[in-house]
Each structure stands twice: as C-alpha cells, then as structure tokens.
C-alpha cells in the first residue's frame, strides 16, 4: 500500500465519521462545525485525485465561505444548543425510508455505470492551466452564462435586503 | 413567509470591570447585533460618601478630601473648595498666591485634558498617543511635585492661599516645559487629531445640540463643544483671570456637525493651547510677596448657604455649602461635570455601535470618582 492509498482510506474513514456526527448530533452548532471538517477532508480527496485546483477551491468556497456563513446563520438562531426537537426525531420513519431509497438509487447507478478508468497517471501535473484554457476557450459561453446568473443572483440578494430594511 | 421574524435583544453588562469605562462604571446595554438600543448607566461603584464625610470634618480638614473628588485635577478641586470657604469667611488670598493658583491649576488642567485626549485615543485603539501624553503629563507632575511635594493628590491650595511658595528656579523649569510641550502637542496632533481614521470615528457621532446641552446641563468643554461660549473664568470671574488674555474655544463643527465627539475632543486640544497662553502670561506677571493670608485656625463661617462655581477641566464645578456657624460644614454638595455628563450618555448612545459608546464616554471625559464622589 502506497502513501496516497493510505491517505485515501484515512480520509474516507474520517469523512464518514464526520458525516455521521453531522447527521446525528443533537446540537445544531456541533453539526455545523463538524460539517467544516467534513468539507475540509473532502478537499483531501480532490487532492488525492490530482485535482489540486479543485481541492483549493473546495477549501476556499465551501469550507471557508459557505460553511462560515452557515455557522454564522446557525449562531443567530435562537436556542441552537438546546433544540426542543432534535433532527433525529423529525419524521424519523419518512426520513429513514427516503434515505434508504436514495442510497439504493445511488448504489444502482454506481453499479451500472462503466467508469472510465485512467491509466495510472505517471505524474500529476498542474491542472490550473488546462482549466483556464478550457474555461476561456471551449466553455466560454457556459462560463459567461453562469457569471451572468451569479450577477443576477447578487443583484437580487441586494434588492431583497434593501426591501427588508425599508419595511 | 408572512410570519414575522422574532428577534431578541442581547443584554450586555459593560463593566464594572471593562477596559474602557474610565473607572468603575457599569453600562447595561441592550443590543441588536452591535447596535445599542438602550443604554442604562449604573453608577455608584466609587461612591465614598465624601459629602457625608464633609459634615464630620473641620473646614480646613476637608481640603485633602477634595483631592479625592477628582484626582485628575486635584488642584482645581482644592481651589474650588478653598475659594468657596474664603468667600464665606471673607478672606482674600494674597496676589502672589492667586497667581500661583492660576499657574498650578492651569498646569493641572493641561494634565487632565491630556488624560482625556489620551484615553479617547486609546479607546479608539491608538495606544501610543496615550503613553506619549502620559509622558508629557509626567513632566507636569514633576513640576507640581516640585511645588507641592505630591504628584497626584496635592493638597496644595488651602484656605487663604497656597501651602508653600514656589521653589526658586521653578519658573524657568516651567517655561522650559512650555516650550517643549508646544512641540509635543503639535506632534500629538499629527498623530491623533488629524488622523483620518480617528476623525472618521469621531465626526458626526453623538451630536449634542446647544439646546440639548443646556437641557442636560453639560458644562465645560462639553458645553462649549456644542457652540455655547460659556466659561466660568469669564462669566463669573475669580482670582486674576480678568487680567489675563485668553480665548474660549468653542466647537465649530470642523469635521461634521457642531457638538459631535470630534468637537468635544478638539475643544480640549484648543483649551490646552489657551492654558499654555495663560501660563506664559502668568509666569511673566507673577509678583513677589506673601503666599498665605492670615486665616484663623478655627474657622466659623456665618450661617447660610453658598454656591461657588469654579471652572475645572471637567467644567463648571459647583460647591454648594451650607454652614450653621460651627466648625464643620452643615451640608456640602459637589455638583460635578461628570455627573451630568454621564446622565446624557443613555440618550446619546441610542442607535450607535458598541464601539461608538466607548467613543462617547471618552469624548465626554467622564471620571468615575468625580461622578460618584
């Protein structure tokens, strides 16, 4: 077993462990903080797969940005530490069945897909140049469309906040 | 979606042990995030019953207690009380003593304003100006120590004059200091007063209109910052102030509205300049002679009540003294600038940030011992 493989199993174990904590913790804030570690170790997977840029973006956007906002929001919620109803008791039966169903679908997809296996890459090179070229040459239209969508979302967010203040 | 969001105010205790409440004061503040909705000052942590003590000690015996009323300007407090008693018993201090009083009191005013400016700067996060100003204050303390023997609570000005004459060579040292201090003050202004971050923090914050200042009975620099040109040294002149040439700085709204925190700050800076002017004149004009009038050992002022106003660094400090003709005051009340200055904070703090509250306290120059007495 070489080092990347060792790290893969390490990350996998830790990630699953954190996922369990996120799902079953009764303290909403603990869940939110644990989600950070979950996202953090997810970046590890990307790094192991050679997606260095993706790993960093995962860290920056998800762990550093979205999760912080999530925690921020959770903190502002009243009585986060002592919720009257934990997320375990919330429609347990339904959740269980939908979860099982979702897992089953996932497994089915997983089984029936033929995954294109890479020939063991000799060396993991920097992906940033390729990504940049792809984004600005081949996929420039989708890229711009998404940018436009984000700008629209941002403007919308500003409008919503402004409207709220006027009331 | 139509359901209204319920939000709670967070109640925070600011103090009594808080780094920037300038003494032991407590503020109970309700905040919405960082914005203050209600601010209720809770005072009395330094209440030492000085007014009650006054009823138990002799007239002269109370002078050292006045030091403790406001330890940042003990000379002025000494003087205010001594002046009140002198007025009651009809004694006039010798001319040299009056000059000495003006000199030490103005020095003390400078040192008190230095603390006010320094702590305001420190509350804004600038630590260096505070220490730099403390260094300048040390020089003043040296001078006052040479004159009185003490550095903080002097007990120097007493009923009928001053305790001791100035030592020989003191005037030269004082002039040396004034020359140095002029430059140091300019340096300080470059460091703090004209600093854009500092101005942004202070300007347009907690504006006190002239009407509000009068209604809340603000005095001294706080009142003058609102544009009201009132100074006891001019309105009800005492000692040798009528002979001296000095300006009364008022708030001009340099960076924002008249009466904002920056004006209150800047009025103090200008008052330091005026004090230096007074000092220069006094050092030239001071005559030779006695420093102590003939005062009986046992003072028995005639019965009745008196109210004597005195311009201390914190403004118009009134000593209300009621005598019943015995050897100790019947009732003594010290009307202090900090007390009324503090009562306006609850009003001013509404809708400001927590950081602004600190600026407001600093700009009003509230001193806890004078507040609680």
């Amino acid at each position, binding site marked *: 077993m*070489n*080092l990347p493989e060792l790290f893969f199993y390490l990350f996998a174990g830790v990630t699953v462990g954190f996922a369990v904590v996120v799902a079953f913790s009764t303290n909403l804030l*603990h869940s939110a*903080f644990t989600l950070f570690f979950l996202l*953090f170790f997810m970046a590890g997977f990307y790094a192991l797969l050679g997606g*260095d*840029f993706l*790993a*960093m973006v995962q860290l920056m956007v998800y*762990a*550093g*940005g979205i*999760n*912080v906002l999530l925690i*921020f929001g959770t903190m502002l919620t009243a009585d986060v530490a002592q919720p009257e109803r934990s997320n375990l008791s919330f429609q347990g039966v339904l959740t269980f069945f939908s979860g099982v169903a979702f897992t089953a679908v996932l497994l089915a997809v997983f089984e029936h897909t033929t995954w294109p296996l890479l020939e063991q890459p000799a060396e993991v090179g920097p992906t*940033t140049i390729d990504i940049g070229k792809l984004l600005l040459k081949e996929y420039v239209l989708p890229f711009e469309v998404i940018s436009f969508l984000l700008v629209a979302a941002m403007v919308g967010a500003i409008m919503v906040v402004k409207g709220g203040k006027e009331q | 979606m139509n359901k209204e969001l319920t939000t709670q105010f967070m109640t925070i205790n600011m103090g009594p042990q*808080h*780094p*920037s409440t300038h003494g032991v004061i407590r503020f109970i503040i309700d905040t919405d995030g*960082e914005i203050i909705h209600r601010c209720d000052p809770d005072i009395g942590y330094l209440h030492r019953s000085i007014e009650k003590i006054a009823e138990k000690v002799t007239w002269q015996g109370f002078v050292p207690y006045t030091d403790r009323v406001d330890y940042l300007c003990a000379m002025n407090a000494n003087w205010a009380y001594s002046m009140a008693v002198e007025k009651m018993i009809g004694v006039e201090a010798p001319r040299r003593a009056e000059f000495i009083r003006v000199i030490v009191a103005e020095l003390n005013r400078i040192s008190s304003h230095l603390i006010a400016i320094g702590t305001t*700067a*420190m*509350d*804004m*996060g*600038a*630590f*260096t100006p505070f*220490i730099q100003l403390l*260094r300048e204050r040390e*020089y003043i303390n*040296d001078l006052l120590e*040479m004159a009185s023997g003490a550095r903080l609570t002097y007990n120097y000005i007493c009923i009928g004059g001053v305790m*001791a*004459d*100035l*030592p*020989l*060579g*003191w005037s030269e*040292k004082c002039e*040396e*200091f004034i*020359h*140095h201090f002029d*430059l*140091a003050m300019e*340096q300080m202004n*470059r*460091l703090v007063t004209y600093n854009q*971050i500092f101005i*942004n*923090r202070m300007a347009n914050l907690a504006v006190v209109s002239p009407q509000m200042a009068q209604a809340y009975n603000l005095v001294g620099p706080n009142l003058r910052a609102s544009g009201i040109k009132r100074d006891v040294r001019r309105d009800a002149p005492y000692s040798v102030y009528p002979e001296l040439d000095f300006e009364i700085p008022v708030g001009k709204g340099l960076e924002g509205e008249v009466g904002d925190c920056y004006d209150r700050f800047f009025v103090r800076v200008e008052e330091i300049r005026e004090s230096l002017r007074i000092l220069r004149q006094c050092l030239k004009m001071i005559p030779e002679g006695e*420093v*102590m009038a*003939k005062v009986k050992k046992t003072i028995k002022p005639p019965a009745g009540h008196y109210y004597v106003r005195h311009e201390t660094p914190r403004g118009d400090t009134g000593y209300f003294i009621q005598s019943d003709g015995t050897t100790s005051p019947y009732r003594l009340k010290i009307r202090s600038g900090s007390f009324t200055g503090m009562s306006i904070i609850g009003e001013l703090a509404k809708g400001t*940030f*927590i*950081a602004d509250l*600190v600026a407001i306290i600093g700009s009003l120059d509230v001193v806890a011992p004078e507040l609680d007495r």
Partner: protein
Amino acid sequence: METLFLDLGLPHTLSSFLAMTVWAVLLIHFLAIYAGVTSWVERRVAAKMQSRVGPNRVGPQGILQWLADGVKLILKESIDPEGADRFMFYLAPFLMVCGVFATFVVLPWGSFIIPADLNVGILYLISITALVVIGILMAGWASNSKWALLGGMRSAAQIVTYEIPVAMGLLPAIMAAGSLQMGHLMAAQGWAPWEWFAFQNPFAALSFFLFFIGSIAESNRIPFDLPEAESELVAGYFTEYSGFKFAAFSLAEFGNTWVVGAVTAAVFLGGGNLPAFLGESAILSLVVFTAKTLFAVFLLMWIRWTLPRFRIDQMMDFSWKYMLPLAFVAFFGQAIYMMLTYESAMAQQIISHGMFLVFLLVLFKFTGRVMLNVREQLSPVNSPASDLVAPAQPTVETEAQAVTE
C-alpha cells in the same frame, strides 16, 4: 530532503513520510520560537515608540521574557467558564494554531528552499485561512460569553470580507508570473528593487498595498483588530481563555505575522533572489528573504502602534466600497499593462525604474518628516526636582501667624 532519505536506501513511502515529518518538526519549532521572540520584539518596539523601556529584566535586554511568559502561561490554571461548550472551547485555540501552521507548508525560505512547492501554492495559502476563521468562530461561541461571541462574529465577518481583496491583490502578481506556484512567483522577479512586483508598474504597486492592508485585516491587527478590540470587547473572542490555551492564541497571532511578512516578501518584494555575481547560495538567499520578511513584520508592528482602530461599519465599507473596486482596477490595469508592454522590454524597464524613483522620492519626504519629529522630541524638558537651586520657603511661619491671631 526526500532524496536524502532515498539515498540512505529507505523505501519511497517511508522516506517521503520521514521528510514530511522532519519538515513539520522543524517548522513547528520555528513557529513557536519565532512567535515567542516576536512577542518580545513587538513589546520592545512598542516601548521604543512610546518612550518606554519595555521588558528588559529576564535575560540580557529581556530577551528571554517570552520564555518566562510561556512558562507562566503553561503553569497557569486553565479556567473553563461556566456553561462553556467544553470540547469546542478546548479545540478552538489549537485549530487556530493549525490554521497558521498549515500555511507554513508552502512558505518559501529563500529562492531554493520550499517545504512543499505546491503548484497551487498561493491558492492554498488563501484558502487554508478558513481554519483560522473556524477557530475564532468556535472560540467565540464556545466561551459562553457575549463579548467573545461578538468578537467571533466580527472576526468571521472581517476575514470573509477581506479575503476577497487579498486574493484579488495577489492576482496581478500571479498574472505577471503566470503561475500559482510560490517558486515561480519568486523566480519571475529579480534581485533589484525595480525588478520586484511591488514596483513593476503602478497597478502592481496598488495591488501590493491592497494585499498588505488586507493581510493586516486578516491577521486581526490594528487598525483592523476589531475582533479583539480591547477597549470595546474586552479581549474579543479570547476573553475567557487562560493558561496554555491563551498562549496558543498568541502563538497563532504572532505566527501569522511571519506568514504575512513571508508572502509579502516572496510575492512582492523579490523573495530571496540574489544578484548574479553572488551565485546560488541557499544560505545567503535565506538571509535576504528573512530580512525582507522581518522588515514586513516590522511594518506591521509600526502600523499597529500608530493608528487607531476602525469601526465595524467603516471596516466593512472600506473593504467593499474602496478596496474591492480598487482591486478590480489593479487587476484590469495589470492586464492592460501586460498587453501593452508585452513586446517592449524597454517600456517595462522605464516604467519599473520610474516607479522605483517615485518610491525613493516618497521615502525621502517621509524621512524628512520623521527627522522633524525626532528633532522635536529632543527639545529640552525640565529636569528632575533635585536640580532646584534652593528648597521651598518654610510654611511653618504662616501656621504660627494664624495661631497668634
């Protein structure tokens, strides 16, 4: 270093693992000692600026003060506030240290020594600060103190806000070097000041300022120390911490100064590049790099002990309304500059030399101002009381007069 172990005949996995371990051990010790010594240096620098003496008792000139402080803090009782979330309360300071320490992985040590020269090094550096944010938020929440909570909230808002101008400020340099790799960034600059990114063109200089200001904000130092504003929030997010956990926060804080300094030196101030005639000496390069880093750290201290603090809304305004647009200006400006001067090395030379001259001019003017201040400081002041010619007149006389009356 990995080759060193491979040469010893160890298997590949083990040798790379050993190499990492050695680096980690070296770096964490460096971090601890650097943070300690810097805490002493900062206090001395502050004292110098404030006409004080500063710590000078423990060891020669007080140089061992940080050890004494460290020992004291470790021996101190560790107090858990009532109602604190204990696990998170204990975890938070170490998360912060981890966040700072993790950045050391990609920090260069001169032109030739880099622990791990990741090809997304600079991106890694920006994104790993997330750990620090989480640590601060956690500390703020877990302390069960309102001051700490306010501090944590402020900090999270501040770091998230200033991460954008910092990242944008780095972009012009990345564009000029054409790489995210620390080594490439340094190699794209020369040894002379006019070959540094900071003086390459006006837009690069602008981005340098933006990056430096943003870095100050991200490391929570004055004028952006709102999360730990002692006059407002007591001590912000670490109000309730004591003992070793407090020491961990200080460690992270002072360690961060090195990170800011090193990135500044590497990306904008030419890193550890040496003039050609000095050859390729790793030691010399290290010295040059360290000197530049420490200069940047000194700048941080200088700013800290000079300026007042922003207010929270002004801090937000400053980032969103001024720094972010300026960062875009720098970004586009750099792009246009590169487009125009792409083929003319001559123009590049003229612009960068001109920039350097302008900088020298500013420095000259600034020195003049400093000298003015120094001269004013030296104006004579009254000497101590013992210099007085004669003692004061006796006061007994007046007392006697009063009695006789």
